[in-house]
């Protein structure tokens, strides 16, 4: 029977069965007089649905027989790798890292558009004083926008570009754990769907930070968000382990750590952060869930709990998470710069060291989110120091980029435009970050639009500019076709003008005293807010150009050569797109992949395009 074959249909049926058994069972039990609350029904229904979905998609069909000592169906195992050119593999539990990369990338862009739609709703409410969506409606829209965009920033580059490229860039045939890799991806659809439908469960109004006690009194939508976040966290940890083992165990001969492409380095540090930090927030969110669902009191002040403790646990992950989001973008940018400047990456060893230093320091700065929270008084001083110190390694990224560009032979293809846009946006984000690291100025600026502007310049500047630069740069490799340069440039200029027109005025709004996370504001802010809303709609429209370019070029674009950019990293030695196992023979690496300007030298041998 085809229904019972592993696949999307069986996954959906499995999820439905999970809801039926979990939520249905508890509802029946409540009907018979047991004291069961809505939150418990949602929790069990979701857990069983997630299990049903993952089993249904086929995640355990090889592990289970192996675990109990039955013979494993090796033909099916090979088939799970997928056949080149078969579109159905993108909708299956496919173990080819390139398929998983595309799954991540396309899903992330779909989520980006959804979260962007929520942003448009926010700007619609804020375009004029007064209320349209209502206060609760606005809070839910704002929280959902944040939760989704955080997910986009967390998974798009490392999950999408990283999965597709890392094995090829280090010269191997797949990730270390292909089935775990597929599981990481297939853990995501259900929690993301759950966040998307949270308004149906009453919404949630705490923002993505979910501070108790507000998050303990909020609606069921809040609980949906907490459960979804923990699930995404599990996926993130699995994926981090996979990246680390792949990078440390499977590099091609000759590729010492200090010959790795800088993009791979950025993902290695990112994966380390994700592995170490994610369990902390998953723990904190689980404690919060226990408070809501099982009646514990970790964060209930009325029964001896401590709400500041939650903030410490939350930010102990969520500040490193800023770098989990940002570092892959910085890596992608530094990978693109030398190719289009035709010069070696400037100060490569220092850039590697700066990524590692950022990773270490990122664990020591979390409490700068809590300067006005009422945490221990003395703690402001060391946190202010570490926070300002992290600007030194971050500054090295600018040194590397500028040092490469200076005296180069610049080709302003679309990816290079995004590099320039990145440097500007990330610079604004960095400089305004100093105002928030400095306690005296932070006291008045925190919780205002200054903060909103700052983190959008940082995350959009770091992650989204890196994502666009990387998406255009690697588009020929991923799809085997060229994108439209003209549409790419239109996208860049429209997006960049609209982005700056949206977020620069927000600094001013913050200084003038407009609070963040409010549905309404005094009339004196009306003019600027209308301007910001119009500019924000333009961001959305410019992304439509990107979407059209990607779809149209993927279907109709001219065929791409193996190495259209004359780049030196290993992925450009494969055909575009690469064959199923990437390389006929594994290449041997002889130097860093940035040997521009030295005629006759190659960074590697072998691995010919097949």
């Amino acid at each position, binding site marked *: 029977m085809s229904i019972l074959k592993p696949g999307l249909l069986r996954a959906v049926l499995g999820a439905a069965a999970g809801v039926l058994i979990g939520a249905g069972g508890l509802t029946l039990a409540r009907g018979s007089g047991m004291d069961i609350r809505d939150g418990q029904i949602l929790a069990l229904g979701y857990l069983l649905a997630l299990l049903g979905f993952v089993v249904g998609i086929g995640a355990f069909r090889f592990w289970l027989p192996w675990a109990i000592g039955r013979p494993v169906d090796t033909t099916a195992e090979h088939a799970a790798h997928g056949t080149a050119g078969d579109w159905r593999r993108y909708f299956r539990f496919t173990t080819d890292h390139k398929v998983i990369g595309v799954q991540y990338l396309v899903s992330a862009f779909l989520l980006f558009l959804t979260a962007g739609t929520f942003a448009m709703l926010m700007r619609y409410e804020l375009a004029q004083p007064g209320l349209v969506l209502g206060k609760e409606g606005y809070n839910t829209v704002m929280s959902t926008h944040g939760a989704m965009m955080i997910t986009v920033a967390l998974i798009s580059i490392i999950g999408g570009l990283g999965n597709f490229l890392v094995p090829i860039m280090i010269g191997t045939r797949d990730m270390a754990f292909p089935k775990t890799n597929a599981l990481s991806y297939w853990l995501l659809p259900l929690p993301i769907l759950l966040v998307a439908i949270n308004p149906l469960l009453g919404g949630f109004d705490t923002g993505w930070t979910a*501070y108790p006690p507000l998050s303990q009194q909020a609606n069921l939508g809040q609980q949906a968000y907490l459960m979804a976040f923990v699930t995404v966290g599990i996926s993130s940890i699995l994926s981090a382990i996979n990246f680390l083992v792949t990078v440390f165990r499977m590099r091609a001969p000759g590729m010492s750590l200090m010959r790795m492409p800088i993009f791979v380095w950025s993902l290695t540090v990112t994966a380390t952060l994700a592995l170490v930090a994610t369990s902390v927030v998953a723990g904190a969110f689980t404690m919060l869930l226990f*408070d809501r669902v099982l009646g514990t009191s970790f964060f209930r002040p009325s029964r001896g709990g401590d709400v500041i403790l939650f903030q410490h646990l939350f930010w102990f992950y969520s500040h490193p998470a800023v770098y989990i989001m940002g570092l892959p973008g910085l890596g992608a940018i530094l990978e693109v710069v030398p190719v289009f400047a035709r010069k070696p990456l*400037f100060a490569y060893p220092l850039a590697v060291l700066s990524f590692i230093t950022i990773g270490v320091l990122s664990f020591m700065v979390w409490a700068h989110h809590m300067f006005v929270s009422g945490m221990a008084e003395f703690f402001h001083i060391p946190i202010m120091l570490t926070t300002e110190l992290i600007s030194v390694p971050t500054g090295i990224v600018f040194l590397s980029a500028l040092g490469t560009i*200076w005296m180069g032979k610049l080709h302003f293809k679309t990816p290079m435009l995004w590099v320039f846009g990145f440097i500007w946006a990330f610079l604004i984000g960095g*400089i305004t970050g100093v105002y928030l690291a400095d306690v005296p100025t932070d006291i008045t600026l925190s919780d205002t639009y200054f903060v909103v502007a700052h983190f959008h310049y940082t995350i959009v500047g770091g992650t989204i500019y890196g994502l666009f630069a990387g998406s255009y740069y690697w588009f020929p490799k991923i799809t085997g076709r060229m994108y439209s340069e003209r549409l790419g440039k239109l996208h860049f200029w429209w997006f960049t003008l609209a982005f700056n027109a949206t977020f620069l005025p927000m600094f001013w709004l913050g200084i*003038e005293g407009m609070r963040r996370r409010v549905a*309404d504001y005094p009339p004196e802010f009306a003019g600027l807010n209308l301007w910001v809303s119009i500019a924000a709609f333009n961001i959305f429209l410019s992304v439509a150009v990107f979407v059209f370019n990607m779809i149209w070029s993927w279907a109709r674009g001219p065929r791409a050569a193996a190495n259209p950019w004359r780049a030196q990293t290993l992925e450009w030695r494969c055909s575009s797109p690469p064959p199923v196992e990437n390389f006929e023979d594994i290449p041997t690496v002889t130097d860093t992949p940035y040997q521009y300007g030295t005629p006759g030298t190659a960074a590697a041998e072998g691995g010919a395009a097949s």
Partner: protein
Amino acid sequence: MTSPRRHLLIAAAAWAVLSIVGAVLVAGLQIIPVIASREADIENSAFVLLSVLSVPVLMFVVVGLGYSALRFRANGDEEDGPPIHAHRVVQGVWLGVSFLLVIGLFGYGAMGLVDIRGAQSADFQVLVHGEQWKWSFEYPDAGVFSKELHIPVGERVHLVISSEDVIHSFWVPAFGIKQDAVPGRETQIYVTATTAGTYPGLCAELCGSGHTGMHLTVVVSERADLEAWLSEQPNKPPPPKGSEPPPSGSEAPQ
């Protein structure tokens, strides 16, 4: 062909001019539209200093990018740039300057922080209570309560802040003070108002559907006027809430 040294000189000159012009322009900026306390004044000095220092940093990168975009285009040739992998002096100077900047900023910030938040004796104390979605104030010395905050001008005021339900944040922009009100503990902040008058304040921490409308008013007056006003205030707190049902979705077992 322009020599590398000449490129550097032109860019450096552009950087110097733009930095000076920019620094002069931002020196007049103000972090808060109305400054009415000693604390806001300290914060504003820090804001101006940071802004003046930001300009050369910003201009360094902008000039570097702009000059490169104008002068280092490939113009269709397939040639590569010079094979420069690193430059010890440039890297050393870059690291040294950014490290010194950070240490300087930290020292200055730490002094400002101690100035604003360091424990100090106070001339006047008020207990601030936040709850969804209003503020109330208690004057322990006079034993009275009020819905507006009244404080004396020119005296060090100690505010002890608490919350009944969720986290709020007590913010009076003109005073440059902001402090979360945290259920289960007391937080505190000091302020010395410098100008008599009436100032708006608001809740700065998302606290539920009424957050947007959670405002307060602060009246700063001479000590004598304040005493007269205090003697007219009730000596009982406003009725506690708790008559209304708990918000929907609250699932705490009783």
